[in-house]
């Protein structure tokens, strides 16, 4: 589920200016300044935010390719579908946003 309409070509950006993220043990704590909510992220969610922060806006396919390279994963280990679902979950809590225009 996503926070709003999207397609496979929607470009996603990380809301970098509005969160603080810290690694703790094998997870990441993230504080979202706009909602005031705190979340625990696994390595995949945190990896998606990191590649979006480093590379800018991208669609599902491009983000997945960046994530596979960044986390040294294969498509079998981390299918595109899983990356898509994770991006939509991040969208639900406003940590990533669809880019307008």
């Amino acid at each position, binding site marked *: 589920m996503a926070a709003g309409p999207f397609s496979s070509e929607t470009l996603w950006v990380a809301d970098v200016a509005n969160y*603080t993220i*810290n690694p*703790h*043990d094998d*997870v*990441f*704590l993230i*504080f979202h*300044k706009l909602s*005031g909510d*705190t979340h*625990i992220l696994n390595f995949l969610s945190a990896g998606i935010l990191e590649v979006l922060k480093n590379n800018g806006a991208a669609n599902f396919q491009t983000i997945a390719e960046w994530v596979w390279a960044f986390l040294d994963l294969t498509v079998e280990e981390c299918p595109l579908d899983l990356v898509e679902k994770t991006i939509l979950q991040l969208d639900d809590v406003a940590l990533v946003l669809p880019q307008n225009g």
Partner: protein
Amino acid sequence: MGMTDFKPLGEYDRRAIIDALAAGTLEMPLGHFTARIKAQVNTLVDFLYDTYRDVPVKTELSDVTDISIHLRAPSILRKYIRTQVIPDPGFQVPAVPLPTSMAALAFEMGVNLVVALKCCRFVSCHAGVVANEKGAIFMCANSGGGKSTLVSVLMEDGYRLLSDEFGLLCMESASLAAYPRPVSLKNVSIDIVRQLSGKEWISPELSGTPKGKIAYRRARPDDINKAHLSAPAKLILFPSFNPIGGHYARRLSVSEAVMRLIPSSTNYHLLGEKAYLALTKMVAGAEVYEIAYRSTDESLTIVRDLAVKVGL
């Protein structure tokens, strides 16, 4: 010493306290908060004389106060017939009217509500905190988890009382501030603490309250005199009384501990990122355990072992 100086409440003439309460000019600084108290309730006078006897007060206001509590009747009818009181902190609170015999409980609940809802200088968590010169033990538990009993027992072990109801976390230093008000004891814990501490330290019991039987363990003069000293958390505990289960101590990760502390905070979402940073800093500097126990003795053994382990 003039009337405008602070001196322990118990050293004042009862008439002076009654007059100051009636005029709303009783000023009570304790830790980082100064309270102004107004009331015309004899049972509150008795409670203050007993339980706050060592706390310095003034009978004339000389400062802006952080807390203003007016203990008053909820309606004109309840001022005269089946008399009741509610704590009025100057803003609307969900306070249940209580019989005047329970004025002490109304007062304590009123002060707690003000700190919980209006304190923005500290991250406040529902927790009991004690400390020695090396650091603090921060105990965060649901009601009935044995937090206040543990606080009282650890006071007998030589720890200083920082607070019973709220862990107050300084956002700049991530250390814990003291607010040594009386420790609220309920039901069976009253007898346990009375036996350990001595009956002279326990207030008269209030029976039939919404929380059952209640009594208060008075803060010691040393707790009050050192209320300006903060302490870093060395050990964070999530205790639970588990009479039919086993006892254990399970270490928690930083992330798990932070996520469990957030719901216990009354102002985390109000304070935002600063609260997040202070909370994570406090947790990262401490060891965190979830503990379960079947008796007070067992809880004390577990906590003593963990305290030694973390160097307290």
